[in-house]
C-alpha cells in the first residue's frame, strides 16, 4: 500500500483539495478492494469507497498523525461496509457475469481463458467470504489482503486483540467448512456434466 509523504497529508488536513485528490488517487485501490471484498458487489463497493473518502474528507482534521493513515482509512471503510451489511434486508452477493469487478490487466496481457479463470477464482473467494458475518469478514480481509497485524486490526475495528484472534480462528474454521461444502457440491455437478457429454455409443 502506498505511504504518502506526510507533507501531502498535512496539506490535505489544512483543506488543500489538490492534496486530498492525491490521497484519493493513492488509496482508491485498497479502499475499493476492501469494500468489494466486504460487500461482494462492484456497484455497492464503488458507492461505499466513495462514501469512505467523503467521510475521510469530512473528518480529516480529527485524524491522529501518530496512527497509520491507511489503517485509519481502511477502518472507516470497514465500519461503513459493516453498517451497509447490517442495513441489508436480503443478501446481495452478486455473482452475475456482467457485474464482475474491474480487474487491472496484468502486464503480460492474459488471454480470455486466463481472465475467465481469474473471474472464477474471484467468484469462489467471494462466495467463501459471503458465508462469514460482517465482523469476521472484515477481520479476514484486513488480515489477508492488507497483512495487518492483530493490533492494527484491533485498533481499526475497535476490538481487543484476543477478540481479533478468536474471530480469525472462527472465520478460518467456517471458511474451511464452506470450502468442503462447495467442493462437495461442485464435484457431483461436474460428474453429471461429464456423464451428459458422453456419447451413447460409449
Amino acid at each position, binding site marked *: 500500500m502506498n505511504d504518502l509523504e506526510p507533507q501531502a497529508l498535512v496539506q490535505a488536513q489544512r483543506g488543500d483539495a489538490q492534496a486530498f485528490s492525491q490521497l484519493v488517487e493513492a488509496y482508491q485501490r485498497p479502499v475499493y478492494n476492501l469494500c468489494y471484498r466486504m460487500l461482494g458487489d462492484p456497484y455497492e463497493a464503488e458507492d461505499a469507497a466513495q462514501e469512505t473518502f467523503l467521510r475521510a474528507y469530512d473528518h480529516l482534521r480529527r485524524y491522529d498523525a501518530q496512527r497509520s493513515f491507511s489503517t485509519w482509512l481502511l477502518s472507516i471503510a470497514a465500519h461503513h461496509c459493516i453498517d451497509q451489511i447490517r442495513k441489508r434486508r436480503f443478501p446481495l452477493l452478486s455473482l452475475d457475469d456482467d457485474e464482475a469487478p474491474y480487474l487491472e490487466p496484468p502486464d503480460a496481457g492474459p488471454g480470455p481463458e486466463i481472465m475467465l479463470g481469474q473471474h472464477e477464482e474471484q467468484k469462489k473467494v467471494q462466495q467463501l467470504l459471503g458465508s462469514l458475518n460482517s465482523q469476521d469478514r472484515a477481520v479476514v480481509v484486513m488480515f*489477508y489482503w492488507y497483512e495487518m497485524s492483530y493490533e492494527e486490526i484491533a485498533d481499526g475495528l475497535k476490538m481487543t486483540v484476543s477478540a481479533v484472534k478468536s474471530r480469525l480462528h472462527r472465520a478460518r474454521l467456517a471458511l*474451511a467448512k464452506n*470450502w468442503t461444502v462447495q467442493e462437495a457440491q461442485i464435484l457431483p455437478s461436474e460428474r453429471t456434466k461429464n456423464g451428459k457429454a458422453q456419447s451413447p455409443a460409449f
Partner: protein
Amino acid sequence: MVKPNHPPFNRWLLSGEPLSPEQNAVLQEHLRTCPECGQLQTAWGEVQFQLRSAGQVAPAPGFASRFQQRLVLQRVKRQRRNAWILFLGAAVMAFAILSFFFWQIVGVFTTPVSLLSGLVYLWTYVFVFSERMTDVFGSAARFLPSITLFGLVFLVGFCTLMSVLWLVTYRQLTNGRREISW
C-alpha cells in the same frame, strides 16, 4: 464434512503460528489417524491458497474524478440543508414575532370589521415578511457555504435570543406607556 471437535489439533491447524517440533510431531501423528482433521487441513490449505492468490481488485477507471463530482454534489446538498435550517429558524422567529403582534392587534380591535381588516393586514405582512426573509437567508446561505452546523445553531440561537430580548423590552416599554395613560 469438517467437524471442529478436535482441539487442540484444529486450533494448531488454523492458527498460522509456527508449532514447536514436539507439537508438530503430535499433530502429524494425529493426522495419520484422524480423517476429519486431515480433511480440515486440506480444506484450509486450499482456502489459504485462494485467499493469498486473490489479488486486490481495482475500481473502474475515473474513480478520482467521480469522487470530485460527488464531493461537489455533497457541498451543494449541504448548502441547501443549511439554507433550510436558516429558513426554518427565521420562520420560527417570524412566527413568534407575528404571534406577539397578533396578540397586540386582537387587543386593540374591538369590532369584527376592524379585526377582519387587521387580519388581512397581518396576512399581507406575513407574506411579504416571509418573502423578504427567504431572500435574505437564501443569499446568506449562498455566501456562507462553509458555515458548520454548530455555527449555524449558534447563529440561529443568537438571533432568537436577541429577538426575545427585543420583544421583552418592547413589551415592557408599551406596558409602561399604558400605565402612564391610565
